[in-house]
């Protein structure tokens, strides 16, 4: 008994009163709370949780500001004026025939009062007075009318003109440019990247691999702004020289897309190579034993076996291409345009965000909030692709372990 007590007390490093020891004999050998250890563990957990807070921060800010974008009102001048004095009770008002047309359902503002248009017959407008909690009041002839502009989700996702100055917020103009640059980039990066991966994993001598892999790493490590410079000063002149300076504009999506393609070659090649080298040797040896040539082994046996890993690489590359910013900001042009011609300038989602936020931006303006709506679309697109890519990788890992 005494031996156990002294052992326990030595293990705890403190003197234990005998009486207490006898009473709590069993529990003394159990796990005791260690304050220091628990604190450290709690701190480390906090570090991990911080990453979740980052995600929540991104989702909250993008969502919150986007919501304001879709709910905030913007007053646009109709260039119409009241043609006659109006008192607080009149439902029918006379307007000048200048400016833009009014439609039933329009929300108008005269002074501090808001009106809703019910019917329009020529210049005679029937309205509901004092809507949106404002009080009807008298207005004199010549008071100007403003119309409320609110961007609806349908308009945002369904139209193709992006021109904040005149209240046009159709995101397809930007999404289309993003898809074009990304598609061009993938057309370059996927075949070249995959070919490099097959060469490195199946053909290259260890020595060649030793030289080539660091070079690809350097290619991946060059800052994107330098690639932007490259696109503008080498790729664009090259395209203009090949296709003619009349066809190819100084800023165009083709040049930006091609250079993004070069940028993501290392990503595609290194991820695909990992997938190819993970294929067990036995598969290759079996193919050789059946008399297959090196090419047949690589293309018909190893490649199909690594397909899911390669697909994951392709999808991740697409996500990188969509999120790429500086190259398009420098080389693709400023000013949203809905065009399918790769030699015309067009602005991508990322390019637009950079250009607008680089200037003087006032908070809570329509411009400011619209950037977050674009950001949300961008975030969801890349997140979706990343999740798909990870799913594929996980399934692929299960196949050979």
């Amino acid at each position, binding site marked *: 008994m005494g031996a156990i007590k002294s052992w326990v007390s030595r293990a705890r490093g403190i003197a234990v009163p005998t009486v207490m020891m006898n009473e709590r004999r069993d529990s003394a050998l159990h796990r005791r709370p260690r304050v220091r250890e628990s604190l450290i563990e709690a701190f480390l957990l*906090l570090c*991990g949780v911080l990453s979740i807070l980052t995600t929540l921060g991104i989702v909250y800010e993008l969502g919150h*500001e986007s919501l304001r974008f879709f709910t905030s009102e913007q007053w646009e001048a109709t260039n119409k004026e009241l043609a006659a004095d109006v008192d607080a009770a009149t439902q029918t008002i006379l307007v000048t025939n200048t400016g833009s047309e009014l439609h039933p359902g329009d929300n108008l503002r005269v002074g501090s009062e808001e009106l809703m248009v019910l019917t329009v017959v020529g210049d005679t407008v029937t309205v509901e007075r004092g809507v949106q909690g404002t009080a009807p009041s008298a207005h004199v002839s010549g008071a100007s009318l403003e119309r409320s502009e609110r961007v609806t989700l349908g308009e945002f996702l369904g139209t193709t003109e992006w021109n904040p100055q005149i209240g046009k917020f159709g995101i397809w103009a930007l999404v289309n440019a993003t898809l074009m640059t990304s598609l061009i980039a993938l057309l370059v990066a996927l075949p070249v990247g995959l070919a490099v991966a097959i060469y490195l994993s199946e053909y290259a001598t260890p020595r060649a691999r030793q030289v080539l892999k660091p070079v690809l790493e350097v290619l991946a490590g060059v800052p994107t*702004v330098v690639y932007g410079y490259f696109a503008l*000063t080498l790729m664009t002149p090259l395209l203009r020289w090949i296709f003619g300076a009349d066809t190819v504009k100084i800023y165009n999506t083709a040049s930006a897309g091609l250079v993004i393609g070069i940028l993501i070659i290392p990503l595609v090649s290194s991820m695909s190579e990992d997938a190819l080298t993970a294929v067990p040797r036995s598969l290759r040896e079996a193919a050789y034993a059946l008399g297959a040539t090196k090419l047949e082994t690589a293309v018909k046996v190893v490649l199909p076996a690594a397909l899911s890993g390669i697909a994951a690489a392709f999808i991740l590359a697409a996500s990188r291409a969509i999120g790429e910013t500086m190259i398009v900001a420098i080389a693709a042009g400023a000013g949203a345009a809905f065009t399918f011609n790769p030699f015309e300038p067009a602005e991508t989602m990322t390019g637009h965000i950079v250009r607008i*936020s680089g200037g003087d931006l006032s908070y809570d303006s329509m411009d400011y909030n619209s*950037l977050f709506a674009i950001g949300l679309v961008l975030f969801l697109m890349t997140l979706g692709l990343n999740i798909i890519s990870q799913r594929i990788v996980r399934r692929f890992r299960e196949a050979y372990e």
Partner: protein
Amino acid sequence: MSALTRTTETFTTQDFSPRLSQRRRAGRIWAVVLQAATVVAMLALIALLVNIIDGAFGYAAVEYTVPPETLSSVPLEDLSQDQLITILREHLSTGLLRRYEAEKPLSERSAEDLYGLVVERVVAPKVVAQWSLLDSVFKREEVLRTAAEQYPDAELRMVSWLTTRFLTAPQSGDPMRAGVRTAILGSLWTVAIALLTAFPIGVGAAIYLEEYARDNAVNRVIQVNINNLAGVPSIIYGMLGLAVFVRMLGRFTSGVAFGLAEPSAANGRTILSAGLTLGLLVLPVIIINAQEAIRAVPGSLREASLGLGATRWQTVWHHVLPSALPGILTGTILAISRVMGETAPLVVIGASTFITVDPSGPFSQFTTLPIQIYQWTSRPQDVFRNLAAAASLVLLGMLLSLNAVAILLRNRYRGK
């Protein structure tokens, strides 16, 4: 039935050989194609480097308001103080002279200072045209002829846009005098802040996930979340930084809350905001790298330590971390080199592009090297493209040296 007859058919070598040679030829052709693709990737890198070097050097036609040879027969650098003062008195307006005298009397200024004034105010060189290095070397005759025809008054000289003056001079609107000192300092400040915040948190999270976390829903969510964060475009982090650090916490990031800045003039677009944003951006990269390094530490080390009665934290602190440290540091250096090249999030946060004073602390406005490159590249005047090329060389030099440190560290670690 037909299948059976096919399998029992006998083939001779002659039946195989024509197809065999065909298959081998296809193999050879494709081997060349695959190799060619690799060469294309290499060529892209070479083209990129050549393009930058091409822009950073070359002929420039420089026009002077007053040609230096008319001022004195010996080079201006060799003139004495008195001679330089005489030149200044001859060529400058009295108003301007009085202003300089008021700043610091001319007679008390050093010869170097006076020489700078003479070059800036009297000689006033101006670049009227410039050529790339390749043109300057391979089309020299043509360049000389064009320069003589179009800019008869200009002096044609070989210029390196990357000079020690370029490294040490602050930003300027005049391409002959612009430099990247403020940008380099801004880059160093932001990277330092990003590192100070992201490194401890990142390593902490990695230790938690590798050494403490049980396989439960919460921890799986953390892990998946980190992997997803690593794939979020950097510009999204810029928007987060703009909304949170610049706007929401503007009082703190501008220094107003600490009484370090004037509330009326200050805004949250400071080095601190930028550093914190970059810290968030690089956090998942550091976590993932550190996790890999910690995972590579053999389990026997942990078991030995735990078996001797060490607590979990003692095991981590005294055994796991020291042996994972080289790996963690290598990963961190690579993460830094990524942060150093980031441009988009900083543009979104609103880094000021025209800053001529060195940043003095975390609450000052700033510009960074990549932003400087972006700004110069998007200027319409061609001469700024040469500056962008020179600045790109500086940036690449910094990144390559960082990578070299990482490789050295890795090799040393491997040797042990």
